[in-house]
């Protein structure tokens, strides 16, 4: 018989409150709409609450929740083509550099792009990214390497 550790209610609530902004913003990179991303995160945490007894505890709780959040966001994408217009670069920060990076990121396959956000924005380790994306830890390194290579090439292309 498999013994599940389970996740405590207060653990999930603590994670939700401390990382809400990061969950929703990365989810928005998948859904294409901040409102839908928020909805996906709310639904994902509701799912995590219902299924908390099935959390095995052989990896971080956050990685387990990330997987649920990303699945909820992908479900949302499957049902819609966002009806929004042409974009323009952000008007804050470093507009030109950000615009180049934005274009290069947008050209990445979804798994590579999400791995980049999980590593460099959500600060997850390779094992946690693997759990969140449903891939082996060794594959995470390869995925990030591929993303770096594609970004380098994409940025050169954008700049020339």
């Amino acid at each position, binding site marked *: 018989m498999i013994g599940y550790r389970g996740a405590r209610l207060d653990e999930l*609530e603590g994670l*939700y*409150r401390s990382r*809400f*902004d990061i969950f*929703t*913003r*990365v989810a*928005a*990179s*998948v859904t*294409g*709409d*901040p*409102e*839908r*991303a*928020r*909805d996906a995160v*709310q*639904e994902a*945490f*509701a*799912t995590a*609450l*219902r299924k908390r007894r099935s959390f095995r505890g052989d990896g971080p709780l956050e990685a387990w929740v990330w997987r649920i959040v990303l699945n909820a966001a992908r479900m949302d994408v499957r*049902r*819609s*083509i*966002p*009806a*929004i*217009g*042409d*974009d*323009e670069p*952000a008007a*804050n*920060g*470093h507009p030109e*550099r*950000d615009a*180049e*990076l*934005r*274009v290069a*990121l*947008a*050209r990445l396959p*979804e798994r590579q*792009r999400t791995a*980049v*956000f999980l590593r*460099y*924005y959500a*600060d997850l380790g390779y094992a946690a990214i693997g759990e969140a994306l449903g891939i082996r830890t060794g594959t995470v390194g390869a995925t990030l390497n591929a993303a*770096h290579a594609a*970004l*380098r090439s994409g*940025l050169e292309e954008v700049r020339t």
Partner: protein
Amino acid sequence: MTDLDRGSLDRILPFTPGAPDWNDVLRRARQDQVRRRRRFVAFAAATLVAVVGTASAVGTVRHFVLSRGFIGLPPLGATPSTPDSGKLVVSAWSVHAGSRTRLWVYGDGRLIWQREFVHRRADLPESANGRSSGFLEQRLTPQGVELLRSEIISTGLFADDLELRFEGPAACLNFIGVRDGDRLVRVTWFGFGCPRAKGAQTATPGQASALQRLVARLADPTAWLPAGAWKDRKIRAYVPSRYAINYGAQPQSLEPSRILALLPTPARELLRAKDRTRTRGFYGFAGGPMRVVYGYSSEVTTEEARALAAALDDAGVKRGQGTYALAYSGKAPGPKGNTFSITFEPILPHGGSTCSACG
């Protein structure tokens, strides 16, 4: 060097609206358990409606009016909304208090609307399900139509088409259109952090406040329109007589002939015989440029739509969950993951349709 510092990613990722709401999470977790228990009961009720509808359609001619919304095709025998066509006076697409409302008002008094519950479960008894109300209809008097129209015009924002971007949280796409003589004037606005229309100017606090007030008014006209504005305030389902069949492939668009070739023969022949228009949409991720995708749209009668759905079902084409619209999908030629989809959308009295699952 790939510029992957947290600050760059922070600026690229879209900002998301609102603060954390743990109580909403708890409520959703509880409601889902209740919903699972009710699913069987709902299925039985839906079957009963279909049986009653069929019985009404046989023999005597009776009006069969649906008192709650539905997704996809109406029960057999449901009476279509009349008249068949109407002159559009107001249209809106906006988010207020956790729900997205799409609304159309016609010169003949029809107020047709659809509500998508984005941040909360439906609290509307007439709603088709917990996420979408389906298309609903109420009737205004001529005075009611004019009151609604003048409420919009009186903001002074609707002299000409206008595109604005909000500096605060807002959904990525919002608009209100209103008839001014022969013209339909439309104000569109985009949320902060969303891909924005080129040329959109920053909304002043006064413009933002006026639009937010209008959005709240349009989300619930029964709350402020006087009794004399209503011919029939009772909410009923809007039953169309025609459907738009929208089909395409994403993320790589395909020619219509290549999509139709993927369908069972009866469905292929039905759509091939129809005129079609090319549509343009956007697909992608909010931080980057949206990819333009092309689709196709053909108009069919409700009976033809039923035949098409039956052909797709018989052939085992994957049917969507039906939360927002009746839709089918399957693998399409092209890059890995390329998918074709066919969506059924009611045609509204002005001859247009919407995208029920778009945001």
